[in-house]
């Protein structure tokens, strides 16, 4: 990409602080994960505390939503991986790269400022 | 043609009578068979006879095409204007009854005027057609008679 400067652009002060904060989070993924785990734990506890008004029978099951979210997510991922085994082809399957609909140069030349 | 003395003399005598007969037919248009169309043709016949005998060029000098070209539309206009006059005086288009106070007189005046217009146009157009076609070739030679 021709117009990427070699060095990072110095952001202004406010976004700079924000970016540094993100840098720290990215550098310490375990802390993020731990935070997420704690919140999830709290939510699981809350599940036992409030009175449920199930509109559909399964909602009444204890820990229905946490389990559903976790399991279904995994199912989606494994399902998709299986699907990919069938449907995956080379990127130039339909047409060579030269006529790829997303050839970037036109976007780049369209740039004004 | 200039050498055909008999033809020239006879024609000179006949042509005025032919025209007179044309006028007779013309003015009888309102109450007996006849009228502008027939009269116009008869008058034109006289002119054409003249042209045949005395040559196209002389005929052109006497009956100037420029003038005939004015007469032709003029006749139509006379016809149309009579119609308008009837309209203006309160009747239908070409309703002669309204031209003057007396219905019968109105019919006479109307028809005579209209027929005059018709005669004028027919005579002029007939002559023009003849001159236009005849003018396209040379005069007929004596030997060809």
């Amino acid at each position, binding site marked *: 990409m021709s117009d*990427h400067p070699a060095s990072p652009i110095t952001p202004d002060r406010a976004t700079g602080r924000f970016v540094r904060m993100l840098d720290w989070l990215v550098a310490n993924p375990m802390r993020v994960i731990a935070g997420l785990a704690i919140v999830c734990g709290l*939510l699981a506890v809350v599940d036992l505390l409030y009175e449920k008004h199930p509109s559909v029978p399964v909602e009444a099951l204890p820990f229905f939503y946490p389990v559903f979210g976790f399991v279904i997510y995994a199912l*989606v991922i494994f399902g*998709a991986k299986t699907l990919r085994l069938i449907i995956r082809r080379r990127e130039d399957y339909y*047409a060579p790269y030269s006529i790829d609909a997303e050839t970037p140069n036109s*976007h780049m030349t369209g740039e004004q400022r | 043609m200039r050498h055909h003395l008999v033809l020239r003399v006879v024609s000179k005598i006949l042509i005025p009578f032919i025209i007179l007969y044309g006028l007779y037919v013309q003015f009888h248009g309102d109450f007996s068979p006849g009228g502008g169309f027939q009269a116009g043709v008869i008058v034109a016949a006289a002119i054409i006879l003249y042209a045949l005998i005395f040559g196209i060029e002389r005929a052109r000098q006497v009956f100037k095409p420029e003038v005939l070209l004015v007469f032709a539309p003029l006749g139509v206009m006379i016809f149309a204007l009579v119609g308008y006059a009837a309209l203006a005086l309160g009747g239908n288009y070409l309703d002669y009854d309204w031209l003057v106070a007396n219905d019968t007189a109105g019919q006479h005046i109307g028809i005579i005027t209209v027929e005059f217009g018709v005669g004028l146009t027919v005579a002029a157009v007939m002559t023009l057609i003849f001159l236009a076609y005849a003018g396209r070739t040379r005069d007929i030679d004596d030997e060809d008679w």
Partner: protein
Amino acid sequence: MLATIPPFLVYLIGAPLALLIPNGSLRSAFMCLVPVVGILLLLDIPYGDHLTTSIVGQSVTLLRVDSLSFVFGLIFNIAAFLALVFAWHVRDAMQQVSTLLYAGSAVGAVFCGDLISLFVFWEATAITSVFLIWATRTEGSYHTGMRYLIIQVGSGVILLSGVLIQASQTGSVAFDAMKLDGLGTGLIFLAFGIKCAFPLLHNWLQDSYPAATATGTVTLSAFTTKLAVYALARGFPGTEVLIYIGAVMTVFPIFFAAVENNLRKVLAYSLNNQLGFMVVGIGVGTPLALNGTAAHAFCHILYKAVLFMSMGAVLHRTGTTKASELGGLYRSMPITMVCCVIGAASISAFPLFSGFVSKSLIQSATADTGHWIVWLVLLFASVGVLEHSGIKIPYFTFFGHDSGIRCKEAPWNMVTAMVLTAALCVGIGVYPAPLYAILPFPVDYQPYTVAHVVTQLQMLLFALLAFVFLMRKGLYPAEFRATNLDFDWIYRRALPVIIRGLGLGIDTVWSRLIGGSRAMVSASIDAASRNFGPYGIVGRTVRVGNGVAWVAVLLLVTLLVGYSAD
């Protein structure tokens, strides 16, 4: 008088006027003004039918404003405004004009009171929008555009046939709720279904949206499919088959989206999945469900816009939206990242974001009417949405593996548009009352109950936990450059191959047949040019005598025919 100026007219007049203004900020500003005027006009028009006239004996209403068309008309105008701000920097007259005309056609279609004018605007949206794809100006986008155009115009043709049949059977072309009981309504339903990207009819969407320009996709995403949703909501509310169609629509794109590398294509799949929710709402057809559809369409246009905008900004700066090429962009484009995350949170229906207050209307309506399997499917789909739009898009673009790309933040106009749209998403999520107030039916619904907030958070955060878990274990599918097959394989590969196979097949009889018919076609064209060309029997100058001979022949024929009568 002002009250009956149809909003689409503003766009129609605005487009040529814009061309008169020198290309530059002034023109961009003028174009942004067009939807503003549209909104002002719309707010001024009283509910009811206006501009009713009649064509070929049928009553035609160009401006029907009621609670349903008002919601869609309003959000279309808003979306047009945001898209135009986002495209402020574009200096391509083709895109500018087609954006205005396309938005105008969509706005016009929403207010049609009859099927004839609907057809006109329906085709107009197809024809005006294809230029946003062609504007990429690559060979690939040209082919994609042609495929898009054929399918869209085809939908219009099917619509017209349906309308004609319907009109001849019922004698009316009024655009009101219909029953799916005959060929006419069936064709109309099919036409709506194509535009709404029903399963197996959906591929044009994933094919074309990633091929449009960075700004064009934002515009495209707002109108065509939502117009179809509006048309279905108007024409077929409570049609039960829609529930099942919608349910399938919510599920199958999830899997495709999960393995798709081109992030704009991921968004296109996710668009399909969101449409499914709306279609289910229409199928359920209760006031609550229809409210849900309208509200969801409203919110969806906004958060989908902000997602496409963020991807557009990334494309604009880096030249690609392929997940395998991106990563770590939060350093370069932090504002874009925040907006993208807001959009992702909205589409995933996190509490305090717009998706939460609209999707739950549909979810509740399915539960209330006892469709609890469909309810479960929608819940399943909600997790899927989180996967591809909520996590995959922001994660692979802005975090994940650092691609090393260091670019500038998006241009100011893109940032403005994204921030405005993101703000609307949050605003609706926090304070949904104004949105609820304009829905087609009175709303008695409270999204923020303890149970609802807690269960939603449980589901989403545990799914997030699963993502983290799979990611750490290395089980999450990596992103490759690849092409994934979808139903379009049938017409992009299978059909051509089959046809080629047949054409070139060794079966000599077959090739003889082909050759023979080809020869027949060319022979008939030759014969036509021989007989009808300037020197042919029919085309040449006919001699007078022959002309008169024809007169004689015809007189004879006529006389004989007359003679045979007695």
